[in-house]
């Protein structure tokens, strides 16, 4: 039986080792282990890490303000352009100061949670744990894991074709699941869910015979 690895927790904050973050990092490393918690002061380094670890579940804690600029919005877009399966928790100061247009983009871009910086480390850990549960239950995430377990050569081969003119490799499907740029990704997620519903509804196992 295979064991499920903990997600990577990626904290991107220009002052990730600040006293304010110290308690949070302690909580996170206690819960997920030192090797699973990664801190980045530079957004580009954080994004690079995420790109290199897309085959694993990732939860990002992302600060909005970098050196006085709201750079976090741009970082958020770059992450979600890579994959919608990365769970991003936005950390911000006073919510009223956040630009409304950019706030709207965060919500529409599926930011998973918005938390203010004055929230306690214990509360933020709870939110991270909920994000972890959320990721573990996602069918698209499970499909991503399945695709990535296949032989690298098989990823390049045609896997499925359509009688109205398109064929897909497993890599195409993976891309579609991560970015939503082609309906095949969502179709496969729905297929698996529908199949599970059918199998459960036809289950004839008895509790008491």
């Amino acid at each position: 039986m295979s064991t499920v690895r903990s997600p990577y927790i990626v904290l991107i904050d220009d002052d990730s080792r600040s006293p304010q973050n110290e308690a949070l990092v302690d909580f996170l490393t206690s819960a997920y282990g030192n090797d699973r918690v990664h801190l980045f002061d530079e957004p580009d380094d954080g994004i690079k890490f995420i790109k290199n670890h897309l085959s694993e579940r990732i939860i990002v804690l992302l600060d909005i303000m970098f050196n006085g600029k709201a750079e976090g919005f741009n970082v958020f877009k770059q992450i979600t352009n890579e994959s919608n399966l990365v769970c991003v928790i936005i950390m911000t100061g006073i919510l009223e100061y956040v630009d409304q247009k950019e706030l709207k983009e965060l919500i529409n871009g599926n930011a998973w949670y918005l938390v203010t910086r004055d929230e306690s480390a214990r509360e933020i850990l709870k939110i991270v744990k909920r994000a972890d549960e959320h990721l573990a239950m996602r069918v698209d995430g499970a499909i991503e894991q399945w695709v990535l377990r296949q032989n690298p050569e098989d990823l390049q081969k045609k896997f499925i074709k359509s009688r109205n003119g398109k064929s897909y490799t497993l890599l195409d499907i993976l891309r579609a699941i991560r970015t939503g740029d082609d309906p095949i990704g969502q179709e496969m997620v729905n297929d698996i869910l529908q199949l599970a519903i059918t199998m459960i509804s036809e289950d004839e196992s008895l509790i008491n015979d």
Partner: protein
Amino acid sequence: MFNIIVVADDHDDLIGDNCKLSYSYLSNELAVASFNLRLLTGEDCKPANVQEAIASFKNEKFILIAYSHGQAHALVSTYAQDGYVTLETAPHFKSSLVYTNSCLTGLQLMQALVQQECSGYVGYTGRVRVPDRKEDELIFIACENKGLINFLTTDDTLTESIEVMRTFYKEQVKKFSSKKRYFLAGRLQRNLSYLVHYDQNSIKRGDFIVDFNSTV
């Protein structure tokens, strides 16, 4: 004997092999040699050739079997991108049965054929996807052809034949699932969910038998 037109777009870059396999499967399952068969492949998959084949049946009933791409409004091929059966040509299919594994034609083309009093139609309302691995592809093809083969080899009505087809689909879904091949099981189940048919008057194969001694 039956008047049958088979259109198999075997020149298509993507699904040409699948169209060829579909026809080859059909000819293995049925005694096609005993049909008055007009087989259109490659460059012949054009509307003019379909019209010519229909005209050759001299107003007798016929069955059109189409293995090709499909759009909501038309059956299309490599050499007939605008369609070899379209909303405009639907009147030629009065009293015929149209059976296809193409994508999407169950959306609009089916309605046009019904309005023109075709006897029956079997097709799909969504994108029919098939696996690329040959042995899996053959199972999908067997499902897609099941209704037609049942219709032509038994005294079941078209509706009863489609029920046999649905049951067969479900059995194959279960087989894939039992082998833990969930993607194929899910995909096959989705294809099944797109399957639609129209049966004008509980048609049976006997309705399509043509007495050639009386027509020649």
